[in-house]
């Protein structure tokens, strides 16, 4: 068969075009499959926030630990006696430790136990430093931990100005007294912290600490919604945040006045 140079080049060009089309078609097919897999977007944009009414909390007395127990039971948080290796998601801290910049200013609050937990900052430093993106910020404001990805480098612990993160120096399982089978434990070598009860929110339930409080001292809600209870409290009462000078913009507020 005779073929001049012109026909040869044309055929070659068409062939190349065909080769290039195959991966494009492949990608298009795949894209269709992935989008079909998802259903409702469970994570909707918003800004979850917690308001701690310290008046009510302090009235309940220093022995009340309902919220702490409920949280730690729901999430299989180990109770390790060694202070250095303690794991905690929510706990009490003296006022001047929780609010060091306020020390000496509010005498009536000095030494009072303040409920502290992860602030789910709007600009979280832990997320910025995580090398594996194991900790990340969801669209609804929750600063999440993906334990599958955590390599235990503890950069996030160094970055968090609130000490809200704990490292599992040892296998936590022997220190979990009653295991909640619905929630996983952690393993040695990962960092953990409060997740604003992401798993309960997905079912439409309030966080475990909020549900456990008998005094109504904890209020949870979406700050984007102007009619939410948290918005109304922030509008009406005087609230403070922990270490506002650092610019992390916490989403846990404390009613003190």
């Amino acid at each position, binding site marked *: 068969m005779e073929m001049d140079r012109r026909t040869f080049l044309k055929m070659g060009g068409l062939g190349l075009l065909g080769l290039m089309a195959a991966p494009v078609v492949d990608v298009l097919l795949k894209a269709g499959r992935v989008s079909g897999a998802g259903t409702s*977007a469970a994570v909707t944009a918003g800004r979850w926030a917690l308001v701690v009414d310290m008046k009510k909390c302090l009235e309940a007395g220093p022995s009340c630990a309902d919220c702490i127990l409920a949280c730690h039971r729901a999430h299989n948080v180990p109770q390790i006696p060694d202070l250095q290796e303690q794991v905690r998601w929510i706990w009490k801290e003296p006022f001047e430790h929780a609010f060091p910049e306020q020390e000496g200013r509010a005498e009536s609050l000095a030494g009072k136990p303040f409920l502290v937990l992860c602030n789910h900052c709007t600009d979280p430093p832990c997320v910025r430093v995580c090398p594996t993106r194991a900790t990340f910020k969801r669209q609804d404001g929750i600063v999440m931990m993906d334990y599958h990805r955590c390599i235990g480098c503890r950069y996030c612990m160094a970055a968090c100005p609130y000490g809200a993160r704990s490292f599992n120096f040892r296998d936590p399982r022997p220190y979990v007294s009653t295991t909640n*089978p619905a929630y996983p434990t952690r*393993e040695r070598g990962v960092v953990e912290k409060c997740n604003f009860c992401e798993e309960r929110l997905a079912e439409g339930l309030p966080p475990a600490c909020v549900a456990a409080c008998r005094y109504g001292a904890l209020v949870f809600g979406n700050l984007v919604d102007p009619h939410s209870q948290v918005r109304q409290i922030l509008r009406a009462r005087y609230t403070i945040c922990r270490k506002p000078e650092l610019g992390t913009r916490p989403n846990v507020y404390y009613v003190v006045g």
Partner: protein
Amino acid sequence: MYDSGKILTGLLIFALLVTFPVWYHLGRATPPPEPDLDTPVIAGLAEKECIESTEYMRAYHMELLKTWRDLAVRSGEKTYVARDGEKYPISLEDTCLKCHSNKSRFCDQCHNYLGVDPNCWNCHVAPEEGNR
């Protein structure tokens, strides 16, 4: 060749040691794994099928679980739509382990046989198994 006797003996011993697993197991077949489906929940099912076809689950359950992991943790997506349109919660505990509540006689059967060691159970809690 110097010391040919020693070298050849050494080579023979080496060859024997290297091929040890082959001739040690000659004629002894390891029984194939038999994942056990006998749990109360599965016994009560009208149609004994997993969320996808058995063939698919057998070949791709690890891929499915990885996708589930990323959907649930990273995208906050908690519902899976199977190929037949049925919806299931994306949860190892609430979906998989509700039926397959016998880890040692289901999961471990094949995993041990194939020598794979998935790290799911370092954190996820396997249901307690009665001594049946």
